[in-house]
């Protein structure tokens, strides 16, 4: 089993700030899991499955929990989604599988599918139950650019079909946002890394970390080295606001800030008030995390209103319960500073037409401002790849992840613009199957 330093949880700092977070949805014990599993109606053609991007046979894995076949339960999950452990924790199940549960139709509590999935997959990882072997060596090789869930899921699927895989990741830790970006009350970095190690355990996946395509290796070289390429590079840096005061200390991108406290330690002792600009799920994660990190007053500042925010309602409801407040229809126009550090934001109120309301100016004090207004697209990365089309910075792919280049496929955030882990896994796996078809048909090289 390959477990290099880039997936070794023990190499993470023990005192990192995320370690202080508890589980928002705690693990089920055996009695709880059994009681919940026994409630499942074992639907046929089940709506929960239809809502799962990876199509996990949910009634089947739950039935296996209820019969005491826990090993088989995890197999059912991981066969469909090798990241079943992290998806169990980070999936927005309220709008996916659980949202589809037929119990909702009878106004009864839906099955806690995510928590049951965690129950089975936690056991599989803890016991290192291994289900999938690499296929017989095909003599073909695939390069995967980016080391997040999309590439890893693709690589795992390609290994099951016997193709050699090499992952090129620009960072140090593997796992992409699962490792660096997921809210710690859902999934901590050490667990994410343990899962990556489990995925790599199929063997035959080489990892070259710290390698940035374009800087350290060119596309031509990769295309010469491999029969096919999969691009799963995710998204780029946090977008910033080009307003006066933008260079003050204490203004950070939300994704960068989250990575910092997940992998290391942040000191927020001087922060009494924090503002997060944005209304998406990263913004909601950030406000909840700041509360968890002990910031006394956390405000979400958004130019629209509650109904217009793109973040999930169930997440925002949780944030409200935890004490976050919001300023709606508000847009920053300048950072206020004191001694080189940010001290607040000057803002305008926006009307229904999203235009500033004359005279409606307010100042919001804050010692920390996080920007969660989107991330840069990495489309320019593929500029040298003939035939690969971009649209709004996203790599254009078909349903199989194929680009306009016959040997290049893509999936995950760089292609879908930024969705869930489960979407990245599904896209990676589908692309791997398409690559396999192409390679075994002898259609490439």
């Amino acid at each position, binding site marked *: 089993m390959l477990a290099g330093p880039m997936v070794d949880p023990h190499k993470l700092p023990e005192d990192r700030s995320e370690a202080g977070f508890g589980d928002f949805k705690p693990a089920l014990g055996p009695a709880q899991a*059994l009681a919940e599993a026994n409630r499942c109606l074992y*639907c*046929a*053609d089940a709506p929960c499955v239809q809502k799962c991007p990876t199509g996990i046979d949910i009634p089947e894995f739950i039935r296996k929990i209820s019969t005491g076949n826990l090993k088989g339960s995890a197999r059912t999950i991981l066969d469909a989604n090798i990241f079943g452990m992290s998806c169990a924790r980070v999936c927005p199940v309220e709008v996916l599988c659980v949202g589809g549960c037929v119990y909702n*139709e009878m106004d009864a509590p839906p099955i806690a599918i995510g928590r049951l999935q965690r129950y089975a997959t936690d056991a599989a990882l803890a016991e290192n139950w291994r289900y999938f072997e690499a296929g017989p060596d095909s003599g073909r090789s695939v390069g995967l650019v980016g080391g997040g869930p999309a590439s890893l899921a693709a690589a795992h699927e390609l290994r099951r079909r016997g193709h050699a895989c090499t992952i090129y990741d620009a960072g140090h830790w593997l796992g992409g946002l699962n490792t660096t970006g997921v809210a710690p009350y859902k999934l901590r970095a050490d667990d994410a890394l343990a899962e990556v190690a489990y995925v790599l355990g199929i063997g035959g996946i080489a990892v070259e970390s710290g390698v940035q395509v374009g800087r350290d290796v060119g596309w031509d070289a990769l295309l010469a080295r491999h029969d096919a390429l999969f691009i799963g590079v995710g998204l780029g840096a946090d977008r910033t606001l080009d307003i006066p005061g933008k260079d003050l200390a204490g203004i950070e991108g939300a994704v960068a800030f989250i990575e910092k406290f997940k992998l290391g330690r942040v000191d927020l002792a001087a922060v009494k008030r924090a503002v997060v600009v944005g209304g998406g799920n990263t913004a909601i994660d950030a406000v909840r995390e700041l509360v968890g990190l002990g910031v006394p007053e956390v405000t979400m500042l958004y130019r629209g209103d509650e109904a217009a925010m793109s973040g999930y309602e169930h997440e925002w409801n949780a944030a409200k319960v935890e004490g976050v407040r919001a300023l709606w229809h508000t847009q920053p126009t300048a950072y206020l500073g004191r001694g080189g550090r940010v001290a607040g934001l000057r803002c305008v109120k926006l009307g229904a037409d999203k235009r500033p309301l004359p005279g409606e100016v307010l100042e919001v004090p804050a010692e920390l401002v996080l920007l969660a207004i989107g991330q840069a697209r990495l489309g320019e990365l593929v500029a040298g790849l003939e035939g690969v089309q971009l649209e709004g910075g996203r790599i254009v792919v078909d349903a199989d992840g194929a680009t306009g280049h016959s040997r290049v496929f893509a999936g995950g955030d760089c292609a879908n613009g930024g969705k869930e882990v489960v979407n990245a896994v599904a896209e990676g796996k589908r692309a791997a199957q398409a690559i396999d078809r192409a390679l075994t048909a002898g259609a490439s090289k």
Partner: protein
Amino acid sequence: MAFGTSVDLTSNTGGIVTPNPFWLASAPPANSGAQIMRAFDAGWGGAVWKTLGTPIQNVSSRFGAHHFKGTRAIGFNNIELITDRPLEVNFREIAEVKKRYPKHGVIVSLMVETRDEWRDIIKRAIDAGADGLELNFGCPHGMCERGMGSAVGQEPALNEKITSWAVEFSTVPVLVKLTPNVDEINPHGLAAKRGGAHGVSLINTIKSIIGVDIDRFVPEPRVGGLSTNGGYCGAAVKPIAMHMIGCLARDPDFGLPISGIGGVANWRDAVEFILLGCSSVQVCTEVMLRGYRVVGDMIEGLTEYMRSHGFSTIEEMRGKAVPQFSEWGELDLNYETVAKIDPAKCIGCHACVVACHDGAHQCIHPAPKEAGTRVPVVDESECVGCNLCQIVCPVPDCITMAAVDNGFKPATWNEFVSEGKTLRPKKGAH
């Protein structure tokens, strides 16, 4: 009662009169005077004292259970024997209970071997104050190997002979407790009648292996490295009990009062047993699992049922379902039902779809995609009305089996054979 029909729950089983028809069966909950007095305080109308005979030695590890999908002990079994307490202690306590609870029924279960032993133990039970006797001809484990219990119940001649001894020696009503471990119950009920019994009680437990320890390869309950067959009871045996009760109740040659036993766990079960001809019901497993307190709901539920159906006494409702317990050859082959799914209640689980496709007649289908609904569609031209969909549906009253007027006059198999009556075309038989 403050309003409505006045309801009297008084029960009379072959001359044994109790304030209500709910008795503790002869079993661990009726093992001692202290227990039975607590049961009477909780509301039980009678108790059949755990079988008296020559006190035995029990094994440790005596009970086993069949759990199903999260429900504990839908079936239960035991390898416990008759009383292990000294007879004089039991008789002293019987006298104490009768002194304190003169209106409640104390029926004493007995199991001995010789005529002299029967004479002696019956005299002592009656001297202690027994309101009735129950002859344990049913126990299917441990005692039968010694020539007692079901060894008697399975031999009509022996059953009749011992019953006649008991009736000869007794001055109180004698019930014979029958074993279900026989192919037909009627010869055994009739043997008890010929012996002079005042009534019967059934069923005793069913021979069973309740489970197997799949790591040790030993059946359960495990006694060291071995196990043995036990007596099966609890909710799961209720259909078997009701069938045997119904067979006796409809037998014109029988006619004795019946105390019903076997899976009675709530008032609804009791109603069913009474409608099938029982004058009283006996409960063990439900009390073992949940305590004497369950009788409160039984009394209230039965009372409400009787009031809502206009019955003022148990006798008025007793046996109401017996005439409708018939033979297959008397069923109307032209009676036709089809499944109807209430779209307002359906939750779209497709349990009916898969059950119909794999277990029935492939007539319930998912709605076509363009319909935009998960409410399945019943192809009524193919539906044989088997009830399977209604059985698997998790939503109460969502699927109903609606009678269809197919234009055919009723015709039974017997009528078809003897009179050539016209049968409707078969459905789903292609």
